[in-house]
């Protein structure tokens, strides 16, 4: 054997390769960070530009329509300043946010465990799946008159509307998430002699987490709809009532303020759920990192 490869030289080669890989990885990460910064800049430039274009079009169009029917953004801003100054907006928004928070809290508290139960127990699944589907596909507005009939006009009725609007998105997504756990990973866990409880904490829960987060994102939107619709029907409080009142009095500039607020709330809450998702499920950032 003249110059055969010895284990030592092979080990050295392997070590070299590893060092090289580590350096490469470091560079990759620096590049990725720079790429992300550029991406952020681009993102906000586009967002700002789109908003500006929207406002300009709205302003031009809004000025040509009868002031009793529609208002341009400049008028809406003035109305908003007035409503903020008088405390009116905050007063009505407060009640709405309370309804939203309670209702959405109940949705999470009931929806996630219910989704798990439906995925893991055939009994629960067969008992409930028709009704889940029924509620999930019925326009919830249909139920609001009935709910006010039973629960009256106070906060209870509104909370129930919010729950009904948002609950089933969470249930259905959680159930799907639990069902879609990778069978191969379940087998890995079994081969390592995982107990049932450990199977849940190590495999099923984390695997379902991105699905649950998606369900929660959908549910946020539906909860907002539920909140506004409930207030249309039921109350003399809340942001929905504000919409109805200014609509009836032909003040579109004031009417548009709560609408924009609800929209902004939708954007904000969706962003928050996304951020929470990244925090609790960093591995699902996969696509962004690459």
């Amino acid at each position, binding site marked *: 054997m003249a110059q055969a490869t010895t284990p030592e030289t092979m080990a050295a080669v392997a070590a070299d390769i590893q060092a090289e890989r580590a350096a490469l990885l470091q560079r990759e990460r620096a590049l990725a960070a720079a790429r992300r910064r550029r991406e952020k800049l681009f993102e906000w430039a586009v967002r700002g530009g789109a908003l500006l274009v929207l406002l300009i079009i709205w302003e031009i169009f809004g000025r040509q329509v009868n002031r009793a029917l529609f208002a341009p953004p400049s008028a809406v801003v003035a109305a908003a300043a007035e409503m903020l100054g008088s405390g009116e907006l905050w007063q009505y928004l407060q009640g709405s946010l309370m309804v939203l928070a309670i209702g959405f809290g109940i949705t999470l508290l009931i929806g996630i465990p219910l989704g798990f139960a439906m995925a893991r127990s055939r009994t629960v699944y067969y008992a409930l799946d028709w009704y889940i589907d029924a509620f999930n596909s019925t326009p919830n507005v249909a139920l609001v008159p009935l709910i006010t009939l039973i629960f009256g006009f106070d906060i209870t009725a509104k909370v129930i509307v919010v729950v009904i609007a948002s609950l089933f998105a969470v249930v259905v997504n959680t159930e799907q998430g639990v069902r879609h756990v990778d069978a*191969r990973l379940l087998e890995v866990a079994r081969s390592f*002699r995982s107990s049932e409880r450990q199977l849940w904490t190590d495999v099923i829960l984390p695997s379902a987490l991105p699905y649950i987060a998606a369900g929660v994102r959908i549910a946020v939107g539906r909860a907002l709809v539920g909140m506004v619709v409930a207030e249309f029907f039921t109350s003399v409080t809340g942001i929905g009532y504000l919409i109805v009142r200014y609509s009836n009095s032909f003040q579109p500039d004031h009417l548009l303020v709560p609408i924009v607020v609800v929209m902004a709330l939708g954007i904000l809450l969706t962003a928050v759920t996304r951020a929470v998702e990244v925090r609790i499920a960093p591995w699902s950032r996969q696509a962004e990192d690459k």
Partner: protein
Amino acid sequence: MTTETRLAPSPGAAGAAGHPKMRVERATKLFGDGAVIAFENLDLAVGANESLCIVGPSGCGKTTLLRCLAGLIQPTVGRVLLDERPVTQPSPQVVMVFQHFGLFPWKTVWENVTYGLKLRGVPKQQWEARVRPYLDLVGLTGFEQMYPYQLSGGMQQRAGLARALAVEPEVLLMDEPFGALDAQTRELLQEELLRILEQHRKTLVFITHAIDEAILLGDRIAIMTARPGRIREVIDVGLPRPRQIEVCRQTERFAQLHAHIWQQLRPEAAAAVR
């Protein structure tokens, strides 16, 4: 088939205690109400600290056989024995390395590698001492806090290997562990596995469809035929250890074995693509 007689003279099969470490006894596995026969009337034994490679065409039931050895499924007929005791569920002495790596995407390298220790209730303070040598061995030190998706395929399988070794099993079952890797990475990992097994002797059952891999890693090679799977022949490799891939490849024995095994597999492989 005459597998029994061919199996008998192999020195490794006996093992120190006078019995094979693991044994498959006249096992048949049927799927789908018997419509599919994964393997039929199969006998196989692997001695303590012996490396047994199983080669065969795709779909010959190799993986099913390995899952039976792991205790993940039961043969429809026949038995699997570990130290002469029937295997009915995964054993703590046996651990598996998967072709798909089997890493949990939501766990970091560290959490993946310590997974087996956690399940076994090993106190957290001991993890570092237990895991570090294997992380070093597979070159993963420095990558502990990364998630699997941030690693190359080779590094992911190194983590899979470290996770398996960390529980210090007596038997290592490997299901085409390097099958999903590119040729260069595959060769590096074969080299590493040889080195690791020289430092930590273990009973190894290694499934592959790569003939050269089987020769390089195995003390014996079982050639498996396609459905219904049977062991066609068991061959002693007879290459001295410690082995170096480059050296092994150039021996006449390697060429002979390669030609012989390919002759056995060729009709099977040809039938599979037809």
